[in-house]
């Protein structure tokens, strides 16, 4: 369930020229030290290709070796995510949606004028990368489903304990009725002993 990279690019609507990178956040810590730069280059290259081939207002998922590249193109602004195969596809796209909204909020429409790759880092993207390693964080639906499942488990346990309580109450009822009968017998005996020997 790892996210390896998140990219934001600007695509041309006709898909002719290469897209321009606006923001880039990568997590290459699990590669060896010497491979890191080449992996980054590779990610940039693959990202450009996929974004170029994603038509506007479309989502796309491409399988590449052991990674899946998901891209979402919205009015020329394209967000990409490089994920493992385990990551649920739907939460990927909701995450990309969030990223795009954040970007739009932060930078307004200034990205439309950019022609060269931006090298400044956008802290939100890095923080998003670390935060969303767990898909439940990104996808509200998944989070809700998970919480509901936990609640259901807790409720099942509650019902079990209530059933146990019912059994115990049952045994208590029996014991108390036995006690009541015994005390009644005791009273009768005592009365009998008293009635009998008053003469003597």
């Amino acid at each position: 369930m790892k996210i390896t990279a998140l990219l934001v690019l600007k695509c041309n609507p006709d898909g002719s020229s290469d897209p321009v990178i606006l923001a880039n956040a990568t997590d290459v810590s699990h590669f060896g030290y010497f491979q890191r730069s080449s992996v980054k280059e590779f990610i940039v290259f693959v990202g450009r290709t996929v974004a170029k081939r994603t038509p506007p207002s479309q989502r796309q998922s491409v399988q590449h070796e052991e990674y899946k590249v998901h891209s979402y193109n919205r009015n020329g602004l394209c967000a990409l995510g490089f994920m493992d195969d385990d990551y649920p596809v739907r939460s990927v796209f909701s995450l990309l949606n969030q990223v795009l909204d954040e970007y739009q909020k932060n930078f307004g429409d200034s990205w439309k004028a950019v022609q060269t790759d931006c090298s400044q880092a956008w802290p939100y993207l890095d923080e998003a990368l670390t935060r969303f390693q767990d898909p439940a964080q990104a996808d509200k639906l998944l989070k809700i489903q998970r919480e509901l499942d936990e609640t259901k488990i807790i409720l099942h346990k509650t019902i079990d304990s209530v059933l146990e309580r019912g059994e115990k109450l049952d045994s208590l009822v029996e014991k108390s009725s036995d006690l009541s009968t015994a005390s009644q017998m005791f009273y009768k005996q005592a009365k009998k002993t008293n009635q009998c020997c008053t003469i003597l």
Partner: protein
Amino acid sequence: MMNVKSGQGSSYRERTQEFSSIAERLRKSFPSLNAGVSANNVGVGVGAVAKRTSVFDDPTVEIQELTAVIKQDITALNAAVVDLQLVCNSQNGSESISSDTTTHSTTVVDNLKNRLMGATKEFKEVLTMRTENLKVHESRRQLFSTSASKEPANPFARQHPLANRSTANASTSPPPWVKNSSSSSPLFPRKQADGESQPLIQQQQQMVPLQDSYMQSRAEALHNVESTIHELGNIFTQLATMVSQQGELAIRIDENMEDTLANVEGAQGQLMRYLNGISSNRWLMIKIFFVLIAFLMIFLFFVA
């Protein structure tokens, strides 16, 4: 098989021609019998054609034409046989001929009728087989129709990969867009070869089902959430029922304990009285002393 049938047909034709040449001395001939033989052969042809239908190149037009031709022939043959029957009856009724000729003519007529019945039965079997094939094709088409119905623009470009895949694994039923998404990895090596229309078409075919699947998965997740919440509500209701039932049990226990308390208190009072009665010795000693004195008196009186 066709040769045997035509062979039988020709020998039969010779016999009927002989019979008709005999009967022609009395009345008209029966050219329709030749048509009957050809219809038999045509029926066999339709059966063979209907058997070899596949999904995409089924000769619907040929089959329909042949079916129409056969139907016409059969109705014509039926009419001819009925006429022959009438003529035979009239011949038997009108002139006085030897019984051999009458039996011969009736047997010929019966034979013709049986042959016609056999041919119609075979035709019916062929038709049912054709309808079954059509049903099988329809069900197979429906398996793949999720994609086929959504791409009216590129049905042709899609059909050939679909036909190849369906012939390869017709038994599996995952929708083809899953297969298509795995075929997009040739996108990358093909990028070097650059820009033919095929990858774009594949991509486009993949695009609409992917959007759809995204929406579908969202809808499904929402459904799941809703049903989970519903179940939770149920569980809460059950919990409330159980707790109220157990509350009643608690009340019963309380009543029992109160009864026990009352009984025990009453018994304790009795025992206290008894204790008081026993502990005051003086009254008891006086009673015992009187009883002893009484016995002593009686004893003394009776002995002395």
